[in-house]
């Protein structure tokens, strides 16, 4: 990240113009700063405050963190989210990059364009809608792929949503809604690779596989990292999928599955606001650390 100290230098040269500009700049960002403080910084501060105090408001050190970590569901939830993130990120990288490369090689522009659009459509079904659709897809009694399900040995909805399958199922749901958008992004990034680079690879006799592996994928690197970071942030906050699944299975599957569900339960079922805040703080620390490293190291977000 490069810090250009242009404000001070130009202030010396054109004091009046810069002064006016500076005041205007502050006025333009004022509304946003208010929202940033109210809904970004303040809740974070609130979470930290509650995490380190007890119900009476006195400082309690790490006791909330210890109590919640000792909750029998906590380690399970951490494990669930970790496995889910692993599946989700790996499938995203492999299939999004693979499909974008294949689409990019299609000679027919129309086919490539319409395929990208069709892949993208489920993005409109993000949130609760995608879960509902997949509850149907996974229920052998109504599923259009029930024969596939029964080949795999699943004959009832209960068998499909066995605890061992959930990470995979949530991955499928998330991939179904999210992958199309990323394919569009990757495809665009592939288009941005300079023509002469591709031409040079072709002249050197590189085949499709070598071109992809040695030229295209390295040039997509920062986009892949960008995707992984945003997908990580989205995946770590898993909530609606297991929550709706637990509604659909009357609590059999998906209850207290993810960390966010746990914060919800702590806060609203067990009346332990401080415990909920402690788990939120843990999630925030992890995600802000990851985001911070990314912003600082990748050079993707040039702050100037």
């Amino acid at each position: 990240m490069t810090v250009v100290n242009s404000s001070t230098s130009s202030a010396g040269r054109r004091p009046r113009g810069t002064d006016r500009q500076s005041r205007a700049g502050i006025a333009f960002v004022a509304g946003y700063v208010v929202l940033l403080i109210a809904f970004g910084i303040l809740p974070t501060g609130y979470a930290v405050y509650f995490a380190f105090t007890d119900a009476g408001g006195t400082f309690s050190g790490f006791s909330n963190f210890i109590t919640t970590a000792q909750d029998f569901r906590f380690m399970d939830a951490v494990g669930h989210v970790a496995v889910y993130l692993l599946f989700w990120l790996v499938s995203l990288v492999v299939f999004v990059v693979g499909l974008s490369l294949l689409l990019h090689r299609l000679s027919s522009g129309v086919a490539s364009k319409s395929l990208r659009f069709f892949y993208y459509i489920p993005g409109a079904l993000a949130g609760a809608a995608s879960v509902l659709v997949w509850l149907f897809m996974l229920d052998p009694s109504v599923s259009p792929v029930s024969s596939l399900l029964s080949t795999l040995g699943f004959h009832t909805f209960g068998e499909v949503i066995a605890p061992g399958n959930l990470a995979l199922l949530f991955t499928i749901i998330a991939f179904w809604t999210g992958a199309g958008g990323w394919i569009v992004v990757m495809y665009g990034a592939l288009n941005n690779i300079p023509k002469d680079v591709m031409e040079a690879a072709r002249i050197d006799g590189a085949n499709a596989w070598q071109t992809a592996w040695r030229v295209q994928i390295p040039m997509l690197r920062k986009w892949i990292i960008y995707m992984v970071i945003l997908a990580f942030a989205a995946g770590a906050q898993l909530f609606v999928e297991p929550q709706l699944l637990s509604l659909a299975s009357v609590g059999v599957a998906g209850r207290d599955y993810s960390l966010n569900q746990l914060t919800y339960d702590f806060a609203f079922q067990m009346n332990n606001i401080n415990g909920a805040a402690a788990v939120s703080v843990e999630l925030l620390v992890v995600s802000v650390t990851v985001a911070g490293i990314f912003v600082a190291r990748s050079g993707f977000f040039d702050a100037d």
Partner: protein
Amino acid sequence: MSRTNPQAPARRRPTRNLVPRLLSGSVLVVFLVFFVLPVIWLVLAATKTDQQLVHGNPLSIGSWHAFKANWDALSGFQDNAIMQWLGNSTLYAVISLVITLCVTIPAGYALAMTEFRGRHSLLVATLVVMLMPTATLVVPLFLEVNAVHLIGSMWSIILPYSFYPFGVYLTYIYFSTAVPKDLLAAARMDGCTEIGVFRHIALPLATPVIALVGFFSFVANWTNYFLPYVMLPESSQMPIQVGVGSLLSNVPSFNPAVGTTAIERPQLALATLVAITPVLVVFLFAQRFLVSGMLAGATKE
């Protein structure tokens, strides 16, 4: 075509490369089915009876009659709750869209095109908050909103929705790449006020990014589940995503304990369709903008 020996001429001419082409073609088709089949099934399911759904061909079309019956049953649920949820969603999404645009576009503009104290820190804060998962802040937000007695008010979700750092970032990228600073400097020389520069020079140039930020924020707010689930627990205030989720516990095949007020599966499919239609419509119209916007970062030199 060299069907007997497809490998030999493969290197030179991709058009002759039959086996890899078939392979990549079938991969693309398999994923096409994966992405599209559930959507088609969902549309068809809304036109069937529950009987047809279980026993008929999954990809058959039902009847107008069954569709009408499904619609009547769905709108009969809790005295037309579905339309109320749809109205709620529209109200929340539109108000927060307006606030988001009024706040985000000037902020991104100022970050890119003007100099002021704290600009750099604000930019870094925006990047970090943008990459922070919003759902982890739901419980702290609840506590904060609770402290100012706004729980159950629509502002408890509209105001948090209006805070949209990703939009600020997009606007910032757009202005710093697509609009030359000299243009604004020239206008200032001509005696244009700062507000005048923004309104008459910057804003007309910003149409693509306004559409983009608007689209992303609309979709994000429309599909949000966790925040309204916590803030607006009353059925009369639910947005449609939460409402449709709550229908689930009234479907007998999922929850056998439900009595007479049951919702059948085709009606649930229809409700899901109703919930996504506005987003789908916006999707179809905004496709062009989306692609350019998702690539905003890539065009930056």
